[in-house]
């Protein structure tokens, strides 16, 4: 019984647009933070927090809630923004991101932030925590779902494949792993020039690897919200094995000069860049900031 509060893909896309505005505002205000990864994940996070997840913002620790773990924890500002827009805490609090004594730490901290189900940030570990939630739910006879989002660069980590093996071994069909396959990592391997970086996984490599580890694999355009919702429905219907949704995305999606540029993994915009981004995101034409 999902507590759906958005009216459909168009409204979810608008939530994602507003989230991108808030994300860049928070990073600019903090003078630090990640942008590219939060932007590649924003559409999927909007779909999760405003449609897919069965959660109660006024009761963050509700035991029967669906779990969500942002294993790519460096995209924390995207998660905080979605939690704020969903009502877990005031949107104004996003401007405390990375400030001293803030509940909104650089990487998610389960001990202080409402709505965070697991700390993450050392890559690959959030995934194993999510697997434990799913296995524990099976042991307790609970029927909530556990969702976990990983980066494609994060899939370099050995612990991801340790967990992939064990998750398949226990047939964790109550867990869906979403891989934000934005084709870039922080620095990555060099291409023809220094500015050109090579995707960590080409063609079908990522899907093939998850499949080889015994996971049911679905692929989707992570910016096509209608398709993503359908894919997640399909994923929930899978019985007997965990599902990896390989979501093809664009790092920095939504702002022209950021898209596909690895340097926007983590960078603070200049005033001019900030103005251009806000214009492109519709912040100066009735859009919310």
């Amino acid at each position, binding site marked *: 019984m999902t507590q759906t509060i958005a009216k459909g893909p168009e409204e979810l896309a608008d939530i994602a647009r507003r989230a991108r505005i808030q994300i860049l505002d928070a990073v600019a205000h903090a003078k630090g933070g990640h942008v590219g990864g939060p932007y590649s994940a924003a559409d999927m996070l909007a779909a999760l927090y405003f449609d897919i997840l069965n959660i109660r913002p006024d009761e963050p620790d509700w035991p029967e809630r669906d779990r969500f773990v942002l294993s790519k924890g460096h995209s924390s500002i995207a998660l905080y923004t979605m939690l704020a827009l969903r009502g877990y805490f005031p949107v104004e609090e996003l401007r405390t991101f990375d400030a001293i004594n803030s509940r909104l730490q650089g990487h998610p901290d389960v001990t202080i932030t409402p709505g965070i189900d*697991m700390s993450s940030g050392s890559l690959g570990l959030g995934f194993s925590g999510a*697997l434990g*939630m799913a296995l524990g739910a099976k042991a*307790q006879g609970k029927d909530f779902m556990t969702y976990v989002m990983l980066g494609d660069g994060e899939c370099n980590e050995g*612990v991801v494949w340790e967990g992939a093996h064990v998750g398949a071994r226990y047939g964790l069909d109550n867990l869906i792993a979403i891989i934000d396959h934005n084709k870039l990592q922080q620095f990555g391997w060099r291409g023809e020039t220094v500015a050109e970086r090579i995707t960590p996984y080409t063609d079908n490599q990522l899907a093939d690897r998850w499949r080889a580890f015994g996971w049911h694999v679905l692929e989707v355009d992570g910016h096509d919200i209608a398709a993503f919702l359908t894919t997640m429905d399909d994923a929930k219907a899978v019985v007997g094995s965990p599902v990896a949704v390989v979501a093809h995305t664009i790092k920095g999606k939504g702002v022209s000069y950021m898209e596909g540029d690895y340097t926007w993994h983590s960078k603070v915009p200049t005033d001019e860049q900030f103005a251009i981004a806000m214009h492109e995101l519709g912040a100066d034409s009735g859009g919310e900031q």
Partner: protein
Amino acid sequence: MSTLTPGKALRVAFGETITELARTDLRIVVLDGDTGSSTRTDIFENEHPDRFFQMGITEQNMLGMAAGMATLGLIPIVSTFSCFIVSRAHDSIRVLIAQPKLNVKLMGGYAGLLAGMTGKTHLMFDDVSIMRSMANMTVVAPADEIETRQALKAIIDYPGPVYFRLTRPNSPIIFDDDSRFEVGKAVVVRQGSDVTVFSSGTQTARAFEAAEILAGEGIDVHLVHVPTIKPLDVEAIVAEARRTGRVVTTEEHTIVGGLGGAIAETLGEHAPLPIRRHGLQDVFGESGPDDALLEKYGISPEKTADAIREFVQS
């Protein structure tokens, strides 16, 4: 000269006790890193197969999964060799267990010098130093099968992460059934007046035997067992040290940062006294029979007595 009664290995007492506790405490689950036939979680698997989770050889993942299970109110008991928990999965413990203060019990099996012909890769005797330096972590090293049983019961009801040190060989019995383990409390094992000896874990039995050797020479050892290295029983450490005015620490562990380190830090601040740290030096281990290893690395009862004697007579 009194001698100690032979006893079971701590690992056996561990396997039996968690199996017994799980009969009434349904929160308990066991995660095994493919070593259950050695660490004796096989005893648990036989009786509670539905609450035994084989994790294979995936230590980093296993500790992370334990954290996830703990968020649901389960009490995961994670078991494999100490080296693979403390050293290999250190980051999982730090980020997913210690920082969130999750209720995971870490069972470091085959800890110390005596890990059955395995050599330096498996001999883990810096585990206490490493776990002691991690915020939010409690560190317990029991002496014998009786204390192991009592301490396991205590830590199950003690919220938060606990590192529990377990060893492989059979260990002599120090305590009787009337003794009571309490987290954070040191206990006087033998009253004496010449030198205070602090020991922990299975080294306490060797320290006791050393004290008996020295008693025959007119050196009266005051032996204090310190099963909880963190939080340290500062009050008792200071009081028992002052009782004789000089201190030896002894442990089946490196002298860097373990029990000896903790007590030297404590006495340095609260009661500066002459102190000698005895234990494994700043080295890695090697393969060999238990007796040969204890002799070569200097922590047999005789070698322990030598160290105490030398200190007292210096």
